[in-house]
């Protein structure tokens, strides 16, 4: 195996940023760099890596690969899928069942369970002592048999959710299942802060509806023919924690109702330029169906003629044109509606939006969920867990297939992925557009409306032999920054910062060459999530990788240490937890590093602050308290005048919290 390690010379031998160098000069010769000064390895080492299954060539930047562990014999050669975490265990789905890895030593994960129970995609989630596993394919059996189901209609088939008791995680016990009409492609577990007794499982199915003869009540007719249609809805399963075997569907909300054309940012720069040019040339432009459009002549001419006639003229003059220009918007709004009227009469089939979601990310602490539903990204209000309500929707002509969502910690941004081509296709080739199969980043305003900001796509061109498109990821809890680690199938894993939603920046990556150099063979990263300091990657063909972050000018050791103060006892990335950083010296130092990155404090001041923090860290009791409070007072006095007032305030409140500990 050839491992290409890309490091920054200045970094691999520079002292860590937290050490104070008293001889430092007054100029900014800082190891901590603003993201706009990022120096990326060039040429990109991910391009042109040699193929191989367990011996592919690799490229890595700002990450440490701690271990790569192939799957056990029953699971090798079969797709590895999603991950969930509990205590020191990573639970990895596989189309043949699931595996439980003890990752206490990330350099040496050990397999504790390989549970054979085939069903694609085996999307996994944990809640306390329960493990939920998705089954969608036609070969899943109620009895976990490996022989498949050879009848189109069969009582032996499982398509839905399997529930296991993992109170003794080394011996999972299959306790029940909930069958659904479209099976479960993915699911998310909602831990409602207000409900102690139940959890809710939101099921998204994207496969064809199963026959009525197999599961009574399943219908694939359009809802106007059959109000009970399994299309155009998600399933909500309620799981009583004391009696999980009683889990059942409690609601199948139609969260897509009246979803006609969503407000789109839709216009590519080229389209926008065309409209601007048309405006310059005197074309009539107005907002129709929620988007600026050039109004064609054959609509304009009759209107002009009408205005001319009203003014007693045969042919329209410039004055009539001006009249029309001033009134065009109102006339068109009257004629076509404003494009988002829910109450318009119309042919229902034409008014209907998506008929299923691919995945829903729940963020209970902010009461919102992001649904990636066919051609739309939805924002759902989940304050009533059994009845999610749609509050906003976005569509984007650059997006083929909305796949998943990730909120930032504050909940004022959301990132959607576009799984163009379904994940089995190479969509990161040199000539595949940057906007297709990418992430789209939106801000969420106070009215719960989403606004498009930018796209981000893993930038290294991949070969025809590598399936590649945006896929699952999770936030890395670096305080006061939005940083995400994400899967790109055979495009590897990429870590990027989207704190500035208009300018997402890649700061680390790992990639392997194709599984097979001669043809497209499914492989790559299905899911990669941060869990208690480890970055755990489920590799479709190669097994389980574990990484840790490596400090760089764009992410310091202090920032990594502060992220590592966040500890979970369980994690499902699609049930997003809110990060709340405990007051630690690492957190204070991380803020100082970020102030340095923002270039708003002089080097002398930075040195002084660092010296004070370090002095306080070495002290104890009331002496420490005094030092911290004095420092907090000093910084507070400077905060208002700083370009980074908010961060200075976060630093002072951290120092005060530390003082009062």
């Amino acid at each position, binding site marked *: 195996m050839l491992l290409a390690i890309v490091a920054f010379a200045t970094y691999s031998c520079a002292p860590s940023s937290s050490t104070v160098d008293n001889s430092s000069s007054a100029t900014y010769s800082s190891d901590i760099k603003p993201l706009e000064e990022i120096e990326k390895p060039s040429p990109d080492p991910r391009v042109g890596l040699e193929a191989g299954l367990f011996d592919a060539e690799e490229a890595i930047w700002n990450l440490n690969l701690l271990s790569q562990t192939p799957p056990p014999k029953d699971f090798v050669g079969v797709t590895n899928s999603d991950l969930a975490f509990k205590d020191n265990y990573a639970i990895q789905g596989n189309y043949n069942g699931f595996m439980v890895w003890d990752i206490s030593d990330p350099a040496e994960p050990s397999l504790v369970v390989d549970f054979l129970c085939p069903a694609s995609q085996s999307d996994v989630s944990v809640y306390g002592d329960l493990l939920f596993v998705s089954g969608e394919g036609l070969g899943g059996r109620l009895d976990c048999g490996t022989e498949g189901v050879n009848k189109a209609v069969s009582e032996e088939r499982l398509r839905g959710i399997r529930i296991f008791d993992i109170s003794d995680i080394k011996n999972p016990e299959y306790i029940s299942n909930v069958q659904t009409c479209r099976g479960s492609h993915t699911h998310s577990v909602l831990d409602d802060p207000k409900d102690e007794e139940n959890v809710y499982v939101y099921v998204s199915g994207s496969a064809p509806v199963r026959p009525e003869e197999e599961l009574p009540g399943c219908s694939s007719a359009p809802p106007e023919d059959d109000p009970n249609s399994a299309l155009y809805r998600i399933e909500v399963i309620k799981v009583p924690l004391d009696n999980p075997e009683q889990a059942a569907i409690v609601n199948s909300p139609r969260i897509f109702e009246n979803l006609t054309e969503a407000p789109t940012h839709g216009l590519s720069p080229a389209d926008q330029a065309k409209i601007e040019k048309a405006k310059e040339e005197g074309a009539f432009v107005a907002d129709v169906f929620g988007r600026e459009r050039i109004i064609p002549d054959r609509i304009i001419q009759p209107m002009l003629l009408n205005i001319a006639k009203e003014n007693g003229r045969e042919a329209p003059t410039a004055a009539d044109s001006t009249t029309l220009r001033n009134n065009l918007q109102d006339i068109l709004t009257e004629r076509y509606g404003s494009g988002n009227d829910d109450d318009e009469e119309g042919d229902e089939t034409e008014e209907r939006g998506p008929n299923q979601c691919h995945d829903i990310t729940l963020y209970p602490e902010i009461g919102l969920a992001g649904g990636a539903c066919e051609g739309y990204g939805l924002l759902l209000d989940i304050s009533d867990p059994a009845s999610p309500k749609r509050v906003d929707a976005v569509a984007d002509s650059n997006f083929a297939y909305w796949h998943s969502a990730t909120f930032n910690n504050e909940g004022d941004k959301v990132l959607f992925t576009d799984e163009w081509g379904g994940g089995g296709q*190479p969509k990161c080739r040199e000539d595949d557009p940057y906007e297709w199969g990418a992430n789209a980043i939106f801000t969420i305003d106070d009215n719960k409306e989403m606004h498009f900001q930018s796209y981000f796509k893993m930038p290294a061109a991949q070969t025809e032999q590598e399936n590649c498109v945006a896929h699952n990821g999770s936030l890395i809890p670096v305080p006061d920054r939005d940083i995400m680690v994400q899967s790109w199938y055979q495009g590897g894993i990429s870590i990027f910062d989207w704190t500035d939603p208009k300018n997402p920046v890649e700061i680390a990556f790992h990639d392997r060459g194709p599984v097979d150099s001669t043809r497209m063979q499914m492989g790559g990263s299905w899911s990669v999530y941060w869990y208690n300091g480890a970055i755990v990657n489920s590799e479709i063909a190669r097994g389980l990788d574990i990484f840790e972050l490596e400090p760089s000018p764009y992410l310091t050791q202090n920032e990594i240490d502060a992220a590592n103060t966040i500890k979970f006892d369980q994690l499902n990335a699609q049930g997003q937890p809110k990060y709340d950083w405990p007051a630690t010296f690492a957190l204070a130092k991380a803020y100082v590093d970020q102030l340095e990155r923002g270039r708003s404090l002089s080097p002398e001041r930075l040195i002084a602050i660092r010296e004070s923090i370090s002095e306080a860290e070495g002290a104890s009791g009331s002496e420490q308290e005094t030092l911290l409070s004095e420092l907090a007072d000093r910084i507070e006095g400077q905060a208002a005048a700083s370009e980074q007032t908010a961060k200075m305030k976060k630093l002072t409140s951290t120092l005060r919290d530390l003082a009062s500990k």
Partner: protein
Amino acid sequence: MFNSNIRVLFPFKIVAVLLLFIGTVSCKSTESTKSDETASSSNKSELEELYWEKVEQSRMDFTEADVKFMRGMIAHHAQALIMSRLAPENNAGAAVQRLAARIINAQKDEIASMQQWLRDRDQPAPKIQIEGLDLYIEIDNEPFTSYKKMPGVLSQQKLEELAKAKGTEFDRLFLKYMIEHHAGAVHMVDNLFGTDGAAQDEQAFRLASDIQVDQRTEIDRMQLMLDDLPESG
């Protein structure tokens, strides 16, 4: 215990380390060394052999219905290429042009995947030749024409009508016919799933499901685009 076995099989070792230094190299740079090991198939590990064996095995679990579906869908997709290629030359609107470009990109890849699926199972795959509006398909050097009866396939007459339309009129017809065309594909997937033993193969299930889901999504989008077109005349 599996893990200790695996560790023996796969010591996690770095054969060669290549350090790329960026910026000012202030400390000693390491020469890059290349691995001389060329992994020949003979010394591939046991687990890797098992991997390829399993992949090979998984390709044996298919039915005649799966084969028919793949062949039909390849032909079906080929017609979508013919329709979409008209968009730029017939002066389609920007949104329809983008949609057409997308359909070409997606369906070309899917055709390649389906041909690969057939070849992997030693089933003759349809060969496609497109000349203008004419589609020539051969399987094993025999003309394959039965696809013309499949749901959503346009008659030659409709294709010619589409080829003559320009601008907004083209947009309207393109969307109308592509919606019909896609609806046919959705229907073909439903038929496949309704056949005993079909789509058990993971790849076939995935391909068919993805095609259905993508085309349903596109139908909805095209319907909205169609609703958006200015009223005729």
